[in-house]
C-alpha cells in the first residue's frame, strides 16, 4: 500500500502528516480558519441581517436612518473582491491584532469578507417569514425581542441552517484563497507545495481534500435543515 502511494504520489507522502508542511497541520489550519471566521462572521451577519429586516420601511421598528446606513455598509463590503480586501484590510488587522501575518491575522479579512454575504442571506431568510405571523405576535402584545427571537429567527431556522451551510462552503473557498497569500491551510499546500513546485499530485490531493470537506459540511447541513423543518406534514 505504502509503496503504491510512494510510487504514484511521492510528493504527497514526502510532506508527511505533522510538521509545518504536513497534511494534518494544513487540514487543522483550514478548519481553524473556517471555524472562527464562521463564528465571528455568523454573529455579525445575523446581527446585521436582523437589523436590516427590523429597521427597513414596514419593519417592526422601522428607522430610515439606521436602515440606510447598515444597508450601505453591507453593500459596499460585499462589493469588494476578497483578494483585494485581504490587502486593503491589513492596517485594520494590525490595529486589532498587532500583526498582519499568520493564522489569526487572516481571520479579520475572512470575517469581514463573509459577514455581508451572510447578512444579505439572513435578510432574505427572515423576509420569507409570513407577515401574518409577525402581525399575530404583535396582536398578542409581543415585544420587539420576542418577535426577533421567537418569530423571525425561530420560524426561519431551517432556512438559516441552509444558508449557513452555503456560507461555510463559500468560506472554505475563501480560506483557500487566504492560503495562497501565505496564511496556511489546504489552499497554501495546494499552491506553495503543489502548483509552485510542479508537484501536481500534491495539488490534486489538496483539491480532493477541500472537496471532501465541502461535501461533509453539505451533508451535515442538509441533515440539520431537514430535521428542523416542521412547515410540512
Amino acid at each position, binding site marked *: 500500500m505504502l509503496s503504491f502511494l510512494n510510487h504514484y504520489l511521492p510528493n504527497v507522502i514526502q510532506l508527511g502528516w505533522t510538521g509545518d508542511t504536513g497534511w494534518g497541520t494544513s487540514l487543522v489550519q483550514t478548519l481553524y480558519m473556517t471555524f472562527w471566521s464562521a463564528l465571528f462572521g455568523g454573529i455579525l451577519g445575523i446581527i446585521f441581517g436582523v437589523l436590516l429586516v427590523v429597521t427597513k420601511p414596514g419593519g417592526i421598528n422601522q428607522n430610515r436612518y439606521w436602515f440606510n446606513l447598515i444597508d450601505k455598509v453591507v453593500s459596499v463590503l460585499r462589493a469588494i473582491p476578497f483578494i483585494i480586501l485581504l490587502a486593503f484590510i491589513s492596517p485594520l488587522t494590525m490595529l486589532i491584532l498587532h500583526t498582519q501575518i499568520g493564522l489569526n491575522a487572516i481571520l479579520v479579512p475572512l470575517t469581514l469578507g463573509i459577514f455581508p454575504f451572510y447578512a444579505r442571506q439572513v435578510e432574505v431568510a427572515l423576509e420569507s417569514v409570513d407577515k*401574518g405571523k409577525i402581525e*399575530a405576535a*404583535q*396582536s*398578542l402584545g*409581543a*415585544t420587539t425581542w420576542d418577535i426577533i427571537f421567537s418569530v423571525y429567527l425561530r420560524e426561519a*431556522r*431551517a432556512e438559516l441552517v441552509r444558508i449557513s451551510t452555503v456560507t461555510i462552503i463559500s468560506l472554505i473557498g475563501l480560506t483557500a484563497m487566504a492560503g495562497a497569500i501565505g496564511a496556511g491551510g489546504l489552499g497554501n499546500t495546494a499552491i506553495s507545495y503543489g502548483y509552485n513546485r510542479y508537484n501536481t499530485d500534491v495539488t490534486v490531493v489538496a483539491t480532493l481534500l477541500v472537496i471532501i470537506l465541502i461535501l461533509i459540511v453539505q451533508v451535515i447541513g442538509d441533515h440539520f435543515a431537514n430535521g428542523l423543518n*416542521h412547515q410540512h406534514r
Partner: protein
Amino acid sequence: MSLVELANVSVDFNQKGETVQAVHDVSLKVESGDVYGIVGYSGAGKSTLVRTVNLLQRPTAGSVKVNGQQLIKDGEQVISHGALQLARRKIGMIFQGFNLLNETSVLENVAFALKHSKLSEDEIEAKSRKLLSLVELADKADFYPAQLSGGQQQRVAIARALANDPNILISDEATSALDPQTTQQILQLLQKLNRELGLTIILITHEMAAVKAIATKIAVMKNGRLIEHGRLTDVYLHPKQSLTKQFVGGSLAAMKVLNQLHLAKLAPDEAIYQLVYNMSNVTHSIIIDLYREVGVVASMLYGNVELLGDQPVGTLMVLLKGDAAKQKAALAFLAAHRVTATLVPESEVNHA
C-alpha cells in the same frame, strides 16, 4: 360601557403617490357582550377598519378608544409603545391564515402569548393546557401546527388569542379558509365563548351565513364607508341600503333559482318582489290576506326560512299581479305587516 369606540376613523394609504382611502370617516361602538358582525365585499375596508382597534393599522384621522383607554385621539397616537403592548394583550385576534408559529408545538404557541404574564413556567403550561381543553385540543398539545387540520389550527389560534384573558376577540375572516362544516364548528365555539365567558366578539366576514349564525349586531361596509348598522334582526328584516338587501334573504341562492325558472316576459301589471319577514310575528298567511284584503294575487317563485341567531326569518320571492294602484296598495299592506318588500328588477331574472 362601550368596549370599543371608533370615532370618525379614516385610513389613507399611499400607493405610488396616489392616496387611496381605505376607510372613510367611520364611527362605531361595540358594547360589552356584543357579537358584532362587519360584512361587505372584499376590499370594502372591513379588515383595515378593525385593525385600527389594536393599532395593527394606524388610522390617519379619528379617535380610537378600547377598554376605556384612549389609543388614538384625532389621528395621533396617545399611548406609549409599552402601554400599547399591554393594551393589545386584552384584545385577542384571529386571522384567516391562522398565523401560528410552525416551528413550535401547539402548546408552545399558546404559551408564547403568556410570556410576559406574571405566571411561573409551570403555571403558564397549566394555563396553556387549560386553554387547549377549552378548544377541545388537549390531546394535540405536543403536535406541530402543520400536523393539524385547518379547523384545529384555527382553534389553537383561538386558544392563543384568549391566553391573556382579553375582553374582546377580533375575528378577521377567521372562517373564510375553512370548509362549511368546520366553519360551523368555529362559529359555535365563538358563540359559546361569547355566552359562557361574556367575550365581546368583532366578526369580520364576507360570508353572510357566518354573521347570521352568531351575530347580535351588524354593520355593512362599502367602499370604506359604514353604510348601515344596528341590531342584526332590524338590519336583516328592514334593510335600508340596496347592498344590505343583497346580503340578506339568501338573495344569491334565490336569484339562482329564479334564473332557472325561465319566466316568460312579465306583463305590465306584474312585478317580482323579495319579501323578508320575521316568522315569529306571523300568525296568519300574508299571501292569503294580500288577496283577501287588497285583491292582489301573489304567485310564489321561491321560499326559504333560516335562523337569525335563534329567530326564524322567512324569505319569499313572489310575483304580484295587479294594476299600479293595487301594486301600491299591496306594498302598503306589506309594510303595515312589517314585511320588507324589495322590487327585483326584471332584467336580473330574465337574462335573455
